[in-house]
């Protein structure tokens, strides 16, 4: 019988996780007393307070990682759509969109502005105005996108199915992206709502700002893949 030891069993390796008890806080469960706390023997109130703070910070870190990974992975959705569009456009050139490219670009500028506003707003933690401003910009973006697609359909006759795959891509991908913007904007609305009711929304806001940056980046992809001639 082999007496070989587990080659990994005795090696100490640096953990990714930096806190010893990272589990209970992530679930909102009652945190365990940290083993390191036992050594110093602080008062029980101080121990539980510092432990709770550490657990909350850990839970926020976990949620942040989940948001980052989730959004990064979901970019594959838009990458696949761009792949499909690239395939069609390489096979056969598309007619230029009869909708104003400048108008479409300025619409996207709303998202870019929102990204900048939210990024700067995160520095000023207590003010609700950056988030509210972004909310308005998001709704403005959706309204303008709806206007361009309406104009394309009714005035310029870029229609489905008559317009073929180029019209399908314009309307379809614009709608899919708009749905994502709607989701992020709705999330921001609820963050503002909760803030107005006195909740601490800093961590939640940070995650929603990441979502905003995501839809902004995906808009750039959409613009380059579909809108640009």
């Amino acid at each position: 019988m082999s007496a070989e030891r587990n080659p990994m069993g005795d090696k100490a390796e640096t953990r990714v996780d930096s806190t010893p008890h990272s589990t209970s806080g992530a679930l909102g469960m009652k945190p365990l007393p940290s083993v390191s706390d036992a050594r110093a023997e602080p008062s029980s109130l101080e121990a539980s307070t510092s432990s709770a703070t550490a657990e909350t910070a850990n839970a926020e870190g976990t949620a942040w990682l989940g948001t980052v990974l989730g959004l990064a992975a979901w970019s594959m959705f838009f990458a696949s759509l761009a792949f499909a569009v690239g395939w069609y456009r390489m096979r056969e050139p598309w007619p230029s969109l009869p909708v104003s490219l400048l108008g479409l670009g300025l619409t996207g500028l709303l998202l870019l502005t929102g990204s900048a506003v939210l990024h700067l707003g995160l520095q000023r933690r207590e003010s609700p105005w950056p988030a509210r401003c972004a909310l308005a910009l998001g709704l403005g973006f959706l309204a303008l996108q709806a206007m361009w697609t309406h104009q394309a359909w009714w005035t310029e006759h870029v229609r489905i199915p008559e317009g073929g795959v180029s019209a399908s891509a314009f309307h379809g991908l614009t709608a899919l992206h708009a749905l994502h913007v709607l989701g992020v904007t709705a999330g921001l609305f609820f963050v503002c709502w909760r803030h107005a009711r006195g909740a601490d929304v800093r961590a939640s806001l940070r995650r929603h700002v990441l979502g905003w940056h995501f839809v902004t980046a995906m808009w750039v992809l959409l613009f380059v893949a579909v809108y640009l001639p």
Partner: protein
Amino acid sequence: MSLLSLDHKAVARRYLWSGLGFLLLGGLLALAIRWQWAWPGQPVPGLAWALPESRGALTPPTYTAVFTMHGLVMIFFAVTPLLFGALGHFVLPLAIGARGLAFPRLSALGYWVYALGGVLVLASFAVRLGPASAGWTAYPPLSTSAFTPGLGQTLVTVAVLCAGTSAFTYGLNFVVTVARCRAPGMTWGRLPLTVWGLFFASVLNVLFVPVLAAATVLLLMDRLLGTQFFIAGAAAVGGGGDPVVYQHLFWLFGHPEVYILILPAWGMVGDLVAFFSRKPAHGYRLTAGAMGTVSALSGLVYAHHLFTSGMSPLLGRSFMVLTLLISLPAEVMFLNWLMTLWRGSVRLTSPMLAALATMVVFGLGGITGLALGAVATDVPLHGTLWVVGHFHLTMGAASFLGVFAGLYFWFPKMFGRALHEGLAKVHVLSSAVLFLGVFGGQLAAGYAGQLRRLYDPYQYTYLKHLLPLNQWTTVCAFLLGAAQVVFVVNLAWTLRRGRAAEANPWQVGTLEWTCASSPPGEGNFTQVPVVLRGPHALSQPEVLERLGRDWIGQAEVLPGVARQDTAEDAVPASEGTVSTVGRVT
């Protein structure tokens, strides 16, 4: 535990029952397919109520729907939920020493989205034009409303989107849980191989399910909104799209999907052969690395499913080379399993038998895949039953046996009761032998030229001689179905009247067996364990000497030893603190 519970164990149980239910449905659909091949056009016993106009015989459109739904139900609603939903949700937090998943509400939501998809699948059987009938791959233009009108195809397409959403959520949950919620001392190098398998499969889920979502959403837009992404030729309006785009998008998901279906099983086999050979897993790092390499390459080989689609031969050659390369890590892993078994003290328990059977069927299935990975041999074999035999051996039999290896291994932990070991072994052995019979027969039929998805192969003169072979494999299939009754009886009887399981019946050292009760309570552990060693600390001399047994828990302090690490890491022991790098400081 209530239906609204956020506990990962409760979510796991929901997936278990749903997955087993859909496994039954998928299995019955398979038997209908087998009946058609053995007795084409003959009334299927017991189906007259569903097909009154043909008196229970499958008609060509019905047959098409049957094989479509068999594939979709098995992949998206049976095997994946059993591997990830049931086993993954249950085992992963326990095995890493976490109190639960990183996002409990997300895991509960994921189940209900999957359940919605399941309801849509079942509903599709009741609509007028029947369920989906464009193949599980749903290639356009057949799957568009031009050629498969009706609500059934749409419902099932939405159901696949639901299943994909569920997979994305639990994939994300698992990745973050492993990254962030490991117990102190549980370094990446001390993770059980099952966790590695689940982790890599979850990475693939998270990366490639969005690609399926894109393909499916574009298809849905074609069906419902009149877009032209995949419609070309006579049905196209104003310069249509290209159906081949769907194939590229689908297989960009589809090939990683097959690795998603097998990676957890590979991980489980790696752990189980170590546990039941009473030896550390040979080449633990190589095995984990092989799983990672396969995951990394999985997206780069997808177009071997498209060798006959009119792709450039240069692309074909490139994908061929990558496909043959991706077989190498799997071979490394296989050799590691064999070396673990070599000169081990092998215990042929039911999980071990299932793991060994998984190895056998996967080995055979994998080798048949090499013929499909090379363009020259793929061209005559594409679309034949050789392909069907290959993927059923690797994806059906191996994943299925992997599921049962996991179920038999963790059942005492999940339910606190012990399944009847004799019945379990009968189930595993009979299933393994009959799998080889059924899918080996398909390989033979495919090699002889029988194409897949044919309603009546014997209308072709060159296939008439295959009737006895197909009848033989049908008999094996029905016996395989009957063998599952052994499991159902075992399960039902044990849940009602089974004896209580021991705390650690398999005598292994992983955290779920050594630090949690059976079944684990809320929060999993009374105290979060501090991990001191890897998962395969078996047959270690000092453990034998000090504890009189051949295993030690991952978090168990070895008496008489001040520190648990190697001499190079020696630091003086002191009380009370444990650093995050797994040493007593």
